């Protein structure tokens, strides 16, 4: 029950951050593939950097355990990503 409610709160800030970054808009998403607006990359890489530093700082201090890391199966990741990219450029999600 706690996990469910906590996830809802996490989702709230997730959606809030995405909307504030303008990523709810079609043109923001598609323009990263046209190289005219790199907001998606700036946003994604900032998130990555903050999350990396935060998670591994807490891990080094022994506060958190690492969760299951998304599995690598090259063909799947590659083919899935290729299909995903077409959808992303078209729909703009």
């Amino acid at each position, binding site marked *: 029950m706690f996990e469910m409610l906590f996830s809802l709160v*996490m989702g709230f800030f997730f959606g809030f951050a995405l909307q504030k*970054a303008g990523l709810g808009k079609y043109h923001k998403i598609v323009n990263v593939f046209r190289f005219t607006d790199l907001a998606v990359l700036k946003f994604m890489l900032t*998130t990555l950097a903050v999350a990396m530093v935060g998670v591994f700082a807490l891990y080094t201090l022994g506060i958190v355990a690492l969760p299951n890391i998304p599995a690598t199966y090259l063909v799947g990741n590659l083919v899935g990503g290729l299909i995903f990219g*077409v959808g992303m450029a078209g729909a703009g999600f």
Partner: protein
Amino acid sequence: MKLLKQKEWSPYLAGTLLGLVYVTSIAVTGIIPGASGAFENVGGLIAQALYPDLVKNTYFQFVMPPGITTAVMILLGIFIGAFVSAKLSGEFKWQRVSDSQWTRVFGNSVWKRWLVLFIGGILLEFGAGIAGGCTSGLAIGGGLFLAPSAFVFIAAMFISGIPTALLMYRRKF
């Protein structure tokens, strides 16, 4: 308060907020936030009710079990959070074709936009299902652990995304 009402934040600020969400979620519940899995959980639930035979396979039994999971709660939260954000900045509007860039390039035909949205949505979910996650769960959630899968996925996303945009925009690229 003024910041909350702003239409658009710098991507660095918004990215920092999302980064903190990942850290908090992983630290407190051990869950890597993602968006695409929730659709599969709910889709599985619907299939289970209508065509139970469809979910009797490895994918729905072990990879993405049907049900109201924490991923569904995150997705629900995303809707609420984005709604509140848009309401605060006064950007919230009901529109059939919502983007001015789309209208400028492809016209304001509703069915054209909705068709591309519909097919694009199917491709997104299908691709995310095969790859094992989407931009949030795999690219960021895996990337922060330097998982190879995340970087293969990001590369593939651009390899197909760029030509798709090129084909759609042609000279206006």
